[in-house]
């Protein structure tokens, strides 16, 4: 019998306990991965291709304030600007409930130049440009509500006094979050009494090196007007939303810590249980000449092995479920994607390794302290 098989046989001798320990570690690590991914998803916005060339322009007072439509020609004239579209939040209710997808009024022609990663067939683009009440929806939303091209939908805005009927002319994909519904700004103006106002401007610059200059030029163009603006890169704009989440990040972080702590505690206690159960055996091993550090190695290897098995099931299970599972459905549409990054896997594995080490400390001390006679006498 080699040392390796000795350790494995020992670990699996009480199969029920080994299974329960592994499962409790697995559940905790699964939760840990889940929380870490959720935290990352809410604090790190998804970015589509072309984001590095996009600029968002909002009212300087706050994003909830509108901008005058007459700003458009001024922005278009700024050198380096390739395309500009209005981008107006509609805040619609669908079938009497707050819709789970966002709706924005845009300019269908300019949109093609700004959101280049959005993919749709040419007929849909043509119809979108020609029909006033046309709208396009993301694939996720289309699947969720079982909507197809040609269907009509009605949305009631919570922002404007308008209830509007739309005809779906296209279903798009290719953006990082294919959920939005896009329709025409001119249709909103007509139905919502939005006399010459838009929510935001989104624009695309010709090259990344133009970006700082364009941003500065836009800010400057409307300085000291009745609608001062804040232009920022798409990334900076998305990051500004994270600041709005306030202390939620901290609180979720604290919960993560509590979960990790619970996990350490419970697994450590299980390990000590396993060792205490065979105090007599360890005493015999000591009596027949095994040295302390060899005993330590036994304990550490067993504890480490159990933690590793738990990590394999918990982290691996989370990875498989979140990567290949229907994540939109599981999270009720709160999260479009749920990416388990290698950093999260690494961190969880590190926690598992730490757990294996910490759990073996207490029993090791006990074994080190015990005298052989005492150990042989234990009945527990």
């Amino acid at each position, binding site marked *: 019998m080699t040392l390796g098989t000795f350790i494995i046989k020992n670990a699996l001798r009480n199969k029920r306990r080994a299974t329960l320990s592994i499962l409790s570690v697995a559940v905790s690590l699964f939760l840990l991965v889940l929380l870490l991914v959720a935290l990352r998803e809410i604090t790190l916005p998804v970015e589509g291709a072309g984001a590095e060339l996009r600029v968002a322009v909002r009212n300087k007072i706050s*994003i*909830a304030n509108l901008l005058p439509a007459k700003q458009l020609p001024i922005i278009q004239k700024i050198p380096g600007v390739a395309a500009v579209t209005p981008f107006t939040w509609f805040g619609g209710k669908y079938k009497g409930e707050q819709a789970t997808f966002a709706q924005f009024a845009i300019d269908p022609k300019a949109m093609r130049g700004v959101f280049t990663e959005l993919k749709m067939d040419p007929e849909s683009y043509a119809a979108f440009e020609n029909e006033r009440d046309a709208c396009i929806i993301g694939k996720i939303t289309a699947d969720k509500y079982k909507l197809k091209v040609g269907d009509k939908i009605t949305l009631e805005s919570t922002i404007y*006094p308008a209830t509007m009927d739309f005809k779906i002319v296209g279903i798009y994909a290719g953006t990082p979050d294919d959920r939005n519904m896009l329709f025409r700004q001119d249709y909103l103006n007509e139905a919502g009494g939005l006399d010459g106002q838009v929510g935001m401007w989104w624009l695309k610059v010709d090259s990344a090196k133009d970006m700082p200059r364009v941003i500065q030029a836009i800010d400057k163009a409307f300085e000291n007007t009745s609608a001062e603006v804040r232009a920022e890169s798409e990334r900076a704009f998305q990051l500004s939303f994270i600041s709005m989440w306030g202390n939620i990040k901290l609180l979720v972080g604290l919960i993560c810590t509590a979960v990790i702590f619970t996990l350490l505690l419970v697994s450590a206690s299980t390990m000590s249980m396993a060792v205490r159960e065979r105090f007599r055996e360890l005493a015999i091993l000591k009596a027949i000449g095994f040295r302390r550090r060899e005993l330590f190695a036994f304990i550490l290897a067993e504890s480490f092995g159990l933690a590793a098995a738990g990590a394999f099931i918990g982290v691996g299970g989370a990875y498989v479920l979140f990567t290949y599972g229907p994540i939109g459905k599981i999270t009720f549409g709160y999260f479009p994607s749920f990416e388990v990054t290698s950093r999260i896997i690494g961190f969880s594995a590190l926690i598992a390794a730490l757990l294996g080490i910490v759990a073996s400390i207490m029993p090791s001390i006990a074994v080190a302290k015990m005298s052989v006679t005492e150990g042989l006498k234990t009945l*527990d």
Partner: protein
Amino acid sequence: MLIPIFIVIGLCFLAFISYILWLVWAALTSPIPLPYNFKSVFVRWRSTAATIFGIALVVTVFILLNAMAAGLEKSSANTGDPRNVMIVRKGSTAESSSVITLEQFKLIRYLPQIARDDKGNPIISADLAVIISLPRRDGTGEANVTMRGVTPMGKALRPQVKLVSGRWFVPGKREAVISVKMARRFAETDIGQKFKTGGKELTVVGWFDAGDSAFDSEMWMDADEARSIFDRENYSSLLARLADTNDIASFTNRLETEKRMALRADFETKYYMEQTSTAGPIKFLGWFLAVAMSIGAVFAAMNTMYAAIGARTREIGTLRVLGFRRRVILASFNLEGAILSGIGGAIGCALALLTQWFCTAFNVHFGTLSFNTFSEVIFQFRITPALLVEGMIFAVVVGIVGSFFPAIRAARLPVIAALKAV
């Protein structure tokens, strides 16, 4: 497809409830006294302590997350005067997206249901709510804040708001007051400091406290001045006092039937009570985490109880020899698991209460984006007695489920072999 599943779930639930009832009955009539189990929990304290503490943390997380949700709901539900009616545009979910025109205000102003003050003026205020973006004090970025443009009458209609430091704003001097809780979170809001919004510079002249109501998440200035700075022709909402609250039906009827109005009127308290959508996801997270963590805790409790039974094999054999029945042993060990987790639950409740006490004593408030106002909402933990009870139930269920199989094992130990065990 679904109906059989419901039947199975229902039957399981029924079985569980009847089992619990049987356990309670057994606890009351058991020939094995409960203190025996109670002491047994502590005999092997080293292995049980971790499990107890693990369950305690599950309960703490559950209670605190739900206390956050309760705090968020309370911060809104605590708002308003029962005699006031709030009028907003029909279909708008936030005050900031509601629009009341001057014409509408004029029409509503002299409706007979509205109370008059001693000078005979109707007690009604047309306010403006604008969302402005302000930098955070800790430099982590900007967040939205609700700026309320309020008339002197509007101030009188909201007696919850009390000045704690500095003075009230003077109309026309570009001054503003801010909730003291918001001032702790946002830069440039100390008394005397200036900040820029809408292209104009405003001076903070006072801090107020709104007694944990929704106004604690606001900044106030003069209504007409706000309309000019933010370039708004219209108002956002009307707040009126009814002469007789029984008139609410005729009042709302009057507003809602008139076509040119398209307004919605309701008691102010009710309006704020309904603004609870921010708490939903947090509640969901609380329940989800508690259920998921308690699965882990069940495994831990099982481990502990199996170990406890393994160590007491001879004791159990002795009990059987003395004439205790199998089901008595089953109940006894299952109750021991419940006691174990009950202690954990109690510690969990204590930890949660301690956290709440700490936050209250040191004035720790939290803030996040409200889905109702689209601006920062301030809240605190709010542990209700119901939450503590739910936490305890959670813990005890974990204990009973976790000790069920170990208890069955204990009950089925063969007597002779058990007595021979070392």
